[in-house]
């Protein structure tokens, strides 16, 4: 089938088998290697992407389900080439070790902050609980998301304060 959607803001249109997994479409057909796959059964969250702003697991989605959607991967979270505040905070606060979960984790964290700009630590833990990390023990990831929330709040305040 012909499929049209946007990937990280760029319009794509391609001919694809409708039952192709979204993760394969993204990685193999479109080269979005920032989307990882850790289990293929929706348990690990490494393949998380934003579909119209909502965190989804691309290993459980079929290509056809992307029709008309805005798909954002870790590489597209920031503005232009600049990383998202969450990604910068991940790096600064030790949230990254092997890093294989990090793109999906960043997607989960960015989705949280978009809907809840001032989450508690427990809310952060809940929001990332579908994303497994085997290296960190999560505490530094929670630190990083808190720090990103503060940074975004500050940036918004400055923005709002402008004449």
């Amino acid at each position, binding site marked *: 089938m012909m499929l049209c959607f946007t990937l990280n803001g760029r319009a794509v249109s391609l001919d694809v088998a409708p039952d192709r997994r979204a993760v394969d479409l993204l990685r193999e057909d479109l080269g979005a290697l920032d989307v990882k796959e850790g289990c293929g059964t929706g348990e690990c969250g490494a393949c998380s992407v934003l579909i119209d702003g909502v965190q989804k697991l691309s290993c459980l989605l079929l290509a056809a389900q992307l029709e008309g959607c805005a798909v954002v991967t870790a590489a597209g979270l920031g503005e232009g080439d600049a990383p998202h505040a969450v990604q910068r905070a991940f790096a600064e606060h030790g949230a990254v070790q092997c890093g294989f979960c990090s793109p999906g984790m960043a997607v989960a964290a960015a989705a949280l902050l978009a809907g809840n700009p001032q989450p508690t630590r427990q809310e952060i833990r809940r929001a990332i609980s579908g994303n*497994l990390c085997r*290296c960190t023990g999560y505490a530094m990831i929670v630190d990083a998301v808190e720090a990103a929330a503060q940074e975004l709040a500050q940036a918004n305040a400055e923005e709002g304060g402008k004449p």
Partner: protein
Amino acid sequence: MTKPPAPPSPPRADALQKAIGAERYTFDIQAEDCLFAGAYRPGAAAKIAHGRVRAVDAAAALAVPGVVRVLTAADVPGANRQGIVHKDQPVLCGEVIRHCGDPVALVLAATPDALREGLAAMRADIEPLPGVFDPEAALKKDAPQVHAGRKGGNLLLGALIEKGNARAALKTAPVVVRGRFSTPVQEHAFLETQCGQAQLLPDGVLDMTVSTQSPFRDRFEIGHALGLDPFKIHIRAPHLGGGFGGKDGSTVQCLLGLAALKAGGRPVRMVWDREESILAGYKRHAVRLRYALGAERDGTLVALSCRVVFDTGAYAHLGAEVMELSMEHAAGPYRIAHARVEGRCVYTNNPVAGAFRGFGVAQVSPAFEGLMDELAAKLGLDPLELRRINALSPGDENSAGVRLGGSVHLNECLDAVAAHPLWTTRAQWQAEAPPFARRGVGLAAVFNGMGYGRGLADMAIAKVELTGTGGFLVYSAVADMGQGNSSAFAFLASQELNQEAAAITLLQPDTERCHPSGSSSAGRTTYTYGNALLKACAAMREKLLARGAAILMVDRAQDLELVPGAVRHPATGRTLPLALLGRLLHRDDRLAVSEFIMPVAENPPDTGRAFMIGFPHCIFAFAAHLARIEVDGLTGRVRVCDYLCATDGGRVLHRQGFDQQAQGGAAQGLGYALFEDFRQRDGNILTRDLSTYLIPTALDLPDMASLAAKGCEQSGPRGLKGVGEVGMNGPGPAIAAALYAATGAHLRDLPFTPERVLAALKKSPRGRRP
């Protein structure tokens, strides 16, 4: 919302690249025209863990469009045996399968879909053979033989480490506590499953990219298994998506090499999916332990007697080597005059066990610390005080008879826990348990030997290059599985060469351009390579100053200094930019290569003779851990409320990296202690995916505090010791101790599942209170 603490160190060099998804792992490397290889493992579906291979039928698979070839044992050149030390594991099984994940064929296909269909169309006729799934049953005379005709039967190795006369001392010890313990299989569950790509190049070189902890050694394992010249095997090891020991030694390597040999020069990719990773990957050894610990009435330890039985599964892999560390650490980080530790490592038809963070030590820690708690209870001593009385100090002899010449700061770790509010306020905190809940606070003291031990050189060879544009390349030769060693190398080089971080480019291991430096394992990675790197950087500095002196016409090189981007003559302020020096020097002259070999125990004790390599160790990391838990009295569910690690890893080079290792190790240890319940029946795995084998999520783990003892290991780079392993060893015993504080029951079998906790609660006299 509380303000998070400021970041304690400069960020890891690899972190942002990974967070934005730009890092390319082996999993991401896929050549345009590659074939896809997959192993056919018939035991899993047929529920046969031990069977004779009567026939392998590939006809239907070969009829699937896109299937290119099907290979069987008959196609394997060479020994068809892989293994790190003992070569006993077929690449493809021709006659017998010995565990449910053993492969009998390798399918090559043009697309992943064709591969999947081809694998589904494969048939094999496997005649079930009686299997043996219990290591103690496997030692009985009439037990089925896992390796028929093997001298020694199912006993891979029996060993003894002995000091003094433990039997006699136990007879006269005023107080003796005894117990049987068990520790379970644990799955590594790295997020990036085992994977790689291989291609046979026209010049006969087998070119591979693999998610591996041991690229240099892999060449020899592959070469032996497939009858290839190891020096015509070229392996690259990009950043790993986790390893933890499970990628030490061949996973996909031999299968991939075989596929590449038969692929007509096309690249071949192999990725194990999660189920295959669990089915065929190496796991932590399950161990049974019988302990007796004797002490004086004042708590001074006198004697330990212990027997461990290791289930290595169908193949040796690193079974004997892991057991060695168990035995060497069996008495805990304590002074003890008499110790007798017997070990038996046994073949069964269970999945294959191997290296896993805490390498044998995580298995014995719940036992020695469990008995320390029972001893404290029996003597009416404070458990922390009992540990202080006996804790190893500098210059002490450990239970294996090795005098500790390296840094030993266990007492500082214990002091840090003793002074911490999580410990000092424990009585009140426990008393404030909410309705239907019980609270407990427990602690544990642990240690972990560093390096390969005596008998094989723990060596690294570092290489640094001044580039033609005045920057520096550091050729890391030890894989980075996520622990951050490559970032540490870049950090060390930038300090030692006095250059900006941006001037240092870190290259990942590649057997063609780096020098053999061992595996990423054993808490040795940053220690051994880091030492070699500091030497190489010092040699580089000396060379650049000497060349600079000649060019600047300064008489003495020592009058110059290396500053960011230049060689400088402080007396006159003249500088020679490194970018110019890089262009002036021939490439041969822009290199510095230096080696380091880890020291070994001098005058090793005359025991542990069964271990040809690896015994004993002489440098140890230490830690004291504390857990605060809440037990749901109705369900038996344990919630970890707070966790504290105080770690002696020598001098801290990079605080954030240090804390990452402490917290990450503790997290895996908490999974091992509480959640990860690997189930198998007659050699068949019941927990085949991450929805049945549960690793901790963000909701299962608490915030953790990490403290660092102020020590310095004289032999270490900038005074550091390896801290990758020791954090894994604390949670098992710390949680057991907290459970005892909460329930009055000593739990001796990991994991402490709600069922086990509830059963213990029902039996415990304190458990029945309302």
